[in-house]
């Protein structure tokens, strides 16, 4: 065998692009963003130091507060909705049904599409003048009203519905894999003991699937923080600023409103929040009890 330093040189060369990306594109940009958030930068970077002024301004900006609230509402509805609906789909698909693969294919196809496509389809379907509302009225229910898309206090829920439509199939796919891994003996034992099926699911299966639920939740939560395209396509942040989200806030202030200092303060807040929420999970998932190679 070659001495260690030679083999590690080849490996280090192979890893060079990864190191460059990690150092410049990840760590470097994060540090740079945080630095700028303490400056008065408008368009081009200025490296003065104005303390926490941008953060103070950020949390005095109504649009940012609304963005944060929307993220919370959307995130709660989207994650809980996807988990419940996806779980139900997985359980019902797992009942030894006919045409299982057809149903599976139908439930997952929205996940293959762009958020832009999802947003535009739902924008068209739910627009009050020509969409579902008008169609139902034409059927004879003159009083039927479903105008959430143009109502400031409801539009964020439409975004959640579109998101659930797109991502429930993902939860189904993850949980179905978990259900298929459950020992059939468990069902026989439950039958012998005369436990009703729904109780088996609720008290035995769900706890057994908890790692899959955690994985699904992490994936969905990541999508929540990143949500941007869906809002752009579906509402553009409106009506007014009622469906603004933090990701959109940052992009708008970076590229349209030319207030980079405020935008970087906002993205730093996003970054720190995600880090705080994520760190314990990542640690337990990948590094705790790691032995030898692989996890």
């Amino acid at each position, binding site marked *: 065998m070659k001495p260690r330093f030679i083999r590690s040189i080849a490996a280090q060369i192979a*890893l060079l692009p990864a190191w460059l990306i990690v150092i410049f594109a990840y760590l470097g940009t994060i540090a740079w963003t945080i630095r700028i958030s303490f400056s008065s930068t408008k368009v081009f970077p200025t490296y003065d130091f104005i303390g926490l002024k941008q953060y103070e301004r950020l949390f005095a900006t109504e649009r940012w507060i609304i963005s944060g609230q929307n993220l919370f509402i959307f995130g709660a509805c989207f994650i809980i909705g996807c988990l419940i609906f996806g779980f139900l789909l997985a359980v019902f698909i797992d009942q030894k049904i006919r045409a299982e693969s057809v149903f599976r294919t139908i439930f*997952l196809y929205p996940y293959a599409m762009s958020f832009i496509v999802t947003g535009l389809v739902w924008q068209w379907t739910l627009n009050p003048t*020509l969409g579902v509302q008008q169609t139902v009225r034409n059927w004879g229910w003159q009083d039927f009203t479903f105008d959430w898309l143009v109502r400031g206090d409801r539009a964020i829920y439409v975004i959640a519905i579109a998101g659930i439509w797109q991502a429930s199939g993902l939860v189904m796919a993850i949980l179905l894999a978990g259900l298929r891994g459950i020992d059939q003996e468990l069902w026989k034992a439950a039958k012998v003991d005369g436990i009703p099926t729904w109780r088996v699911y609720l008290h035995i299966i769900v706890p057994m699937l908890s790692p899959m639920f955690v994985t699904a939740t992490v994936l969905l939560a990541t999508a929540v923080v990143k949500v*941007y*395209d869906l809002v752009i396509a579906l509402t553009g942040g409106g009506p007014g600023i009622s469906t603004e989200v933090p990701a959109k806030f940052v992009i708008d202030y970076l590229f349209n409103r030319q207030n980079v200092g405020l935008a970087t303060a906002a993205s730093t807040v996003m970054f720190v929040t995600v880090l705080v929420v994520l760190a314990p999970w990542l640690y337990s998932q990948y590094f705790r009890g790691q032995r030898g190679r692989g996890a």
Partner: protein
Amino acid sequence: MSTTTMEPQGPRPSRITPARIGVYAFLVVSAAFFLLPLYVMLITSIKPMAEIRLGNLFSFPLAPTIEPWIKAWTYACTGVNCDGIKVGFLNSFRILVPSVIVSIALGATIGYALSFWRPRGANFLFAVLLLGAFIPYQVFLYPLVRMLSTVGLYNSLPGIVVVHTIFGLPLMTLLFRNFYAGIPIDLFKAARVDGGGFWAIFFRLMLPLSTPIIIVAVILQVTGIWNDFLFGLIFAGRENFPMTVELNNVVNTTTGEREYNVNMAATILTALVPLIVYFVSGRWFVRGIAAGAVKG
């Protein structure tokens, strides 16, 4: 009489219980919920505007027309240009092909190096890469724009390819690292004893074994990059806007009456590539989800 028996003939009918009916009812209603937007998209795209104005979203077109499709593809307006969505389609392909190849090649090499060679700092490198998969992109954007414009890659095709490579790397590395972690270390040790170097083992032993994971990676990257909106909008430049950006411009920046049939035709055209990948790849797509998500 002697030929008749009390036993039923033929296959036993499957039990039809209220519970079974409930199961199928739930599945069929759910399927309708998932399919309805697709159905609405399709029929809207072949209706003339006169029919759309009547407000019957679900009704079948009385006078079907393919004109909206032709307009969407060839001369719909995206802001100032009226060259249709085909421009974006071609741009998306020009972005897609190099981005997919580069990101997978890089991910495979790095995954291999991390799995078998474990050079100094490997854990740190992997930790940061992993973190990169979860961190909101907003925190990277502004400095990245500045860096790319310093080296003259901002608003260019190579620029957007670099960006897709950078942000595709976490998932690709994770995918290949996990895959190689499942390959017996003894196989690698045997190759080492036979005198195989870093690249020889990679190209002659590991890569030929990697076909399944490469297929998964291609599926993930093709759908992911095709569906991207944010990076295309910020880094590609007006000349290279991908299809998702062009689509949004067609639909959301028009003036005058909104042509919903053209919009829906353009939307279907944009969704077509990932949908084809999805329907053709079938279980591989699900495997991609599992590989990227479930295993740590």
